[in-house]
Each structure stands twice: as structure tokens, then as C-alpha cells.
């Protein structure tokens, strides 16, 4: 599993060497998520959350750190980090039996099926639909003014990728897209195990979009040498 995925993981050479050096068998995968070929002439450098599954212990500190930073509360006119309600987090850890843990977050897909699915016409000046890509960070952002809550983006993500986008239970507008916390992701910062990192990626890359169940299966095989039946209820 490790070798196969590393072959596809098209991150910078420095990181590549770093991870190999940690020890043969380190698996680092961008976001989640299986292979999909995508070419783009745009040479933009993006950064994305990478998971080292050999280090992740499933503690869910990332969920609380993400949630705290992305759901601030206003106290006396000051915006302060929230309490870290894990249900609001953009990164979610899936637990499995046999014991593997798979953190899942938005992969900043180069081809964004979610944006493709958005039915709101692109703005003539900015080229933005209700769902659009952030010009610097490359994150997927929802313009709450324009969004009509049709949930087509969430359906596209569920069908074609790992099902990251979830409509808000009330407004039906999309949530859970990774914000990279504006460039300094709190999940990376506070992971007690160094299992998460922000790695440079090229837009022009082979791309992972695997469901957590599939990753879990590969990890079970790696950790326990078992072809385990995957029992995650989700």
C-alpha cells in the first residue's frame, strides 16, 4: 500500500524524502482520496492537508482544533476560538475495527466536481459561482448570499469523492469545506502526533479521492496483514 501510494503522491521532493526517511512504509495521502488523473496548465502551487496514517492515533484533537478556529464566538465584540465542538469540524476521524483511524478532510480537488455541480451562473467579472475556488488558498468557498441551498454540490462530492460537503441542516447551504484556516491550519498545528501536515502540491498531479472505508481496508492490511471486512457503518 505504502509504495503504491507514494508513487502517486506528487508532493515536493523535500517532503517526499522526509517521509521516506521516517521509515519505509510511511503512508502519506493527500486528503483522502483515490486516484483521478487531472492535468492543468496552470502552474499554481497549492497546499493541502496530508495525513500520515502511521502516526494518527484517532484521538480527534484535530476535530476540536478545526472546529474551535472555524467556529469562533463573539464575546464582548471580540472573536474568540470556540470550545471545539467536534460535530462542526471540517476534518472528521473515522474509527474502524480492526483498529485503524482515518481522518478525512476536503482534498481541494483540482477538478472540483462540487463547483461543477453548482447551478448558479458564474459572475461575469469574477467568474465565481455560488461555490468557487479561493484565489490564493485554492480552498472551496461558498458565497452564502448567492447560494440557494440546492445541495447539488454535496451530492456531487458524495457521489464522486469522499462525501466531505454536508448541507447545513437548516439552510441546506454547503459546509465542511476545508478553509486551511487561512493558511495556518489548526489541525496541523495541534495534532499531538505530527500526523497531519500542510504539504505543497501541484495542481498538475495524480489525485486521490478514496473513501475512508477503502483507505481503512488498505491500512488494516498494512498494520495487521488482514484482508478485513470493513464494518464502518457510514
Amino acid at each position: 500500500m505504502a509504495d503504491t501510494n507514494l508513487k502517486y503522491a506528487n508532493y515536493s521532493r523535500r517532503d517526499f524524502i522526509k517521509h521516506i526517511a521516517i521509515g519505509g512504509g510511511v503512508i502519506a495521502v493527500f486528503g483522502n482520496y483515490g486516484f483521478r488523473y487531472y492535468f492543468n496548465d496552470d502552474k499554481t502551487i497549492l497546499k493541502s492537508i496530508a495525513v500520515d496514517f502511521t502516526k494518527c492515533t484517532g484521538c480527534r484533537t484535530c476535530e476540536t482544533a478545526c472546529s474551535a478556529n472555524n467556529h469562533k464566538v463573539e464575546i464582548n465584540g471580540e472573536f474568540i476560538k470556540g470550545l471545539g465542538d467536534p460535530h462542526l469540524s471540517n476534518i472528521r476521524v473515522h474509527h474502524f475495527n480492526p483498529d485503524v483511524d482515518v481522518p478525512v478532510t476536503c482534498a481541494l480537488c483540482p477538478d472540483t466536481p462540487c463547483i461543477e455541480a453548482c447551478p448558479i451562473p458564474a459572475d461575469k467579472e469574477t467568474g465565481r459561482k455560488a461555490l468557487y475556488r479561493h484565489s490564493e488558498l485554492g480552498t472551496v468557498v461558498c458565497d452564502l448570499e448567492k447560494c440557494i441551498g440546492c445541495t447539488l454540490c454535496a451530492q456531487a462530492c458524495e457521489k464522486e469523492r469522499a462525501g466531505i460537503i454536508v448541507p447545513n441542516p437548516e439552510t441546506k447551504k454547503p459546509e465542511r469545506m476545508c478553509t486551511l484556516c487561512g493558511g495556518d491550519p489548526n489541525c496541523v498545528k495541534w495534532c499531538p502526533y505530527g500526523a497531519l501536515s500542510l504539504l505543497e502540491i501541484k495542481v498538475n498531479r495524480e489525485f486521490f479521492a478514496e473513501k475512508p472505508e477503502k483507505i481503512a481496508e488498505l491500512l488494516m492490511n498494512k498494520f495487521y496483514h488482514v484482508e478485513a471486512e470493513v464494518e464502518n457503518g457510514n
Partner: protein
Amino acid sequence: METKGYFGKLLFINLSTGAIENRTIPEADIQNFIGGRGLGMKILWDLIEKPGLNPLSPENPLILMPGPYSGLPVPSSSRTCVVTKSPHTSAIQSKYEHASTISYSNMGGFIGPEIRFAGYDGIVITGKSDKPVYIKIVNDKVEIKDASDFWGMPTDKFDKKFQKELDDYHFKTCYIGPAGENLVSYACIINTAARAAGRGGTGCVMGSKNLKAIAVKGTKMPNVARHKEFVELIDKTRTKFKESKSTGWWRYGGTANVLTSSSYQGTQAVKNYREGTFEDIEAIGVKTAKDKIWSRDFACYVCPLACKKSGVIKEGTYKSHLVHDGPEYETGTMLGANLMINDINGLMELIYAGDNLGMDIISLGNTIGFLMEAYDKKLIDETFLDGINLTWGNVEASMQLIKKIAYKDGIGKLASKGVKALSDKIGQGSEEFAIHVKGHELAAWNVQNDPGMGLGYATANRGACHMNGENMKTQDNNTIVDSVGVCSFAYGEYNESGISELLSLITGIDMNEEKIRLAGERIFNLEKIFNYREGFRRIDDKLPERFFEDALTVGDHKGAVLKKEKFKKMMDEYYANRGWDNETLKPSDKKLEELDLVFTKDKL
């Protein structure tokens, strides 16, 4: 409610009537008993008004208590305390047939925080269902569902099947195995296929209610009083953990780190507590486990320690079997050193079996060790053991016995009651090496070379307990650790001041160190009063004769043994310090007033 950080709400479920209701927790109880073990004890006291209740009767409540830290991102705050009246302990002279102590048992994982996410500070289950059921909780929606299809299922398989049934990975669950269903008196409650509320028969009480499992999912969040300071303190605490040396120590080997060091110090349970040093300890120690078994570390909710290790057996009879956890210090000692087992692969298979069948591995290993000694001394023969050749170090024989115990088959029926019941039956002086206090088996720390631990075992309110503490101060302190919801392994990073600071920020009231110390003492005393009412007296705080007779013969601490007079003096001083009567152990009226426990007087 003035006190922040709580929902102020308990979920009451009566499995006899199917009634489900929310009850408000009195504000005074929250401040006086805090949560977890403490608040659980207060609830138990209120619900059991008379002594002598049969612990397996529908009236005995099974109480699941997270603490005020649970659900908040306080590092290592994953614990849930299960409180009930023990089905496993008994008094030496009590007028009540069913006299038993309180029982509290503490588990990590994710279910404690999830109970709080569902909007409750605790769950109280009473009654008895007429068929196997499980409880499904999604915030305010609570259902009692049929579990007939799952009855009889071992915990590992059940964990997988249950996730499928629930069809949503956000559910956090806990459950019993066949041992709990069959009312083995030291059956435990398991979650994530290996973490356990192990001690004191919590799984037996759950089984007596025909309750297979509890599944919880919630989307709420506890609040805190002083938000800004709280989140700043969380960041500071996380950084502290990151920089702490002990964090790396826990990650490296968990409690298995001390398997070898304890052995060298002569403090390990070896050969049914005959010795404190196991000469083959390296063979089942942390280095061997790392080389031969472990694949990965994993952690409980927001915990930076990751002391739990999973792996796979790679050689021998059990090759390619997956193991969820262990050896830990307790499981590795009780099913390893204590049974003279030096085969790590066999040991792992035994640990897996204990978890899978749902038994407290401490009591289980102690019970097998007792039978091995009785067999070795020819007090019992193979016929008594249904043909099992139960020799020291015998993995296969131990495995046969474990299965018999879980299913109460033949000798397993008696062995499922623990060493006290076995020695009562076997007689012939076997009580001298029946290693229990109040019917509760001792854990993996041996006593000949550690009188403080001896006092801890003798005076623990749930029967012999290695987590009790060796004097009044540590005991009261440990009570608080079990009450706030933080893990005792992480306590070193908090200490009294850290616990107090966090609790004050969460609740918004001044929970200074003295107030918290007093709460710890109050909780410990309420437990004691409960036991006193059941008929437990000083004679019940009795260590087995072995520790005063059988000096160690192996290792650097050869010759170590407890001195009777000296130990008695230690105990006298302890009781005086506690403010308890030296003979009856009844807390004095002055003590009751000091601790706001006067309300117990008219129930005594």
C-alpha cells in the same frame, strides 16, 4: 443553574417499565460531588435507601458518569465512571445476605464525551428487561431496542456487527460479552473491543438487566463559564503535554513500560503473589511486545498519550490473530507473570480472550493463579478442574479455563465467583493464598515489598484496588481524578492546581484546591458510609496472610515481607487520620458535619 459546564440533567431509563425521563441534578450535588465517580456515588446513595440490596436485582442502578471535563477539549479527559452496587464483593460478618460494597470502574475511549454531546451529565439505568435489549440514544431521542440477535456474541464480533446495525460511525458504544450475559461476577463493560470498565463486576450488573449494549450519539456541546481564559488554558495545556517527557514515555509503551521495572523492584504479582520478581519478564516486556506484536498506538478522545497498542500475533499456534490491546502492566502481569507464562504470543491470545468474552482480566488472572497454586499444592486434582492440567505457565490450560468461566461450564461456575468463593469451597488453608480483599481480587502490584500499596488495597472502597492510593491524601485526590473525567495517566501534567484552575474556569465558581480536596474526602467518606451500612467493618480491611508469611525468595528484594505489627500501626494511624472509629470504621459525627454528610445519619 449557577454552576456552568453542566447540563444539569441525568437520563433515567427503567428497563422494567420502559420509562424514560430526564431528571435535574440538584445544584448542591454538583458542587459537592463534581461528577464521574463522586456524583455517581451520590446518585447511588439516593437510589439505594436500604442495606442488603441484591446487586443483581432490578433495583440496583447502573450509572454511567462522565465528568465536567468530558466533551470539552481538555487533554486526556476521556474517562467515564460506571457506578453500581458490586455483585462481586462481600463482608466477613454482616447480617445482610447480599451485603456488598459500592463499585466504581472507569473506562476511556469516546463514550463519556459522547454522553455529554447527547446533552446529559450521566445515564442511570434501573430495572430489568424481559428480553435482551440495547439502548440507542440520539440527543433527546432514546429508544430501547431488541438485541436478541446479538445475545451471546463476543465483544469483538459484536463491536463490528453493532456498528453495522447502527449504520452511522458517529455512534459511540459500550457493551458486554458472554461473561456479562452469564452473570460472571467479575464481568466487565467493554468499548472499542478492548477498553474496559474492568473492575468490580459492572458487566455482570449490566447482564442482569438483559442489557447488551448502549449506543450514544449527540450534537450538543457543554458550555463553560469563562470562555476566553478556558480556551487559552487549553492551548497552554496542549503545549505543556507536547513538551513533557512523560508524554513520549506513555506513547512508547503505555503501562507495559513498567512490566520489567516493577519486576526488578519486587512489586509485581508473580506466581499468585508468592513472588515479586519474574525472572522471564523480558520475554513479555515492552521491548518484546514492540518487536513481536504491536503495529500501532491509539488514543482516547483528545488524549496525547496514546497508551493503547494494537497488533497481530506473528508466530506460533495463534499466528495472524489480531489483538486490540496489550500487554499492559495489568493484563501482562495478571495473565503473564502471575501465571508464570513467558510466551508473549500465548499471553496475547489470553488477553484477547479475556476482552472478547468480557471479563475483568485482573480478577480473571488472579483466579487462575489461585487455582494453579491449589493444583500445584495438590489441594485439588484434575477432576476438580474438569480434566484441565492447570500447571504453572500453561497457556492452553489457561485458555480452557477462561472459556469455562465465561460460560459457567463445570469448574467455571465456581471460578466465575472469584478466589474467595473458590477458597471457601477448597478450604485446607487455601484462604492464605486467596489474594483478595472484601472478595475483590488484588491487581498486578504485589505487596510484600510495598506496604503503602498494601494499605491501598486493604482500605479501598470497592475492595482491593491498586488505584486507591496509599494514604488519605492520595486517596482523596484519586477520587477527584475519577470524578472530573480526566485520566489518571495524565494527572501528572495537571496536579491539584491544574484540576482546580480548569474546574473553576468551567464552572465559574471558585473551586479552589481546598474545596476540591474536601470534595474528594467527602466522596470517599460517602462510599465508606455506604459500605459501613452494608455491614463492612475493620475485619474486612484484611490483607491475605500470604503477605505476612511468605517472604520473597527471588530477585533483589529477597526476604521482603510485611510486618504484622507495623502494618497494623500504619492502619491505626490511617483510620485516626480519617476520623473514623478504630474498630467499626464509622466516620465520626464531627467528620460528617465537616464534610456536609449529615444527611446520611438518618439512613444508617
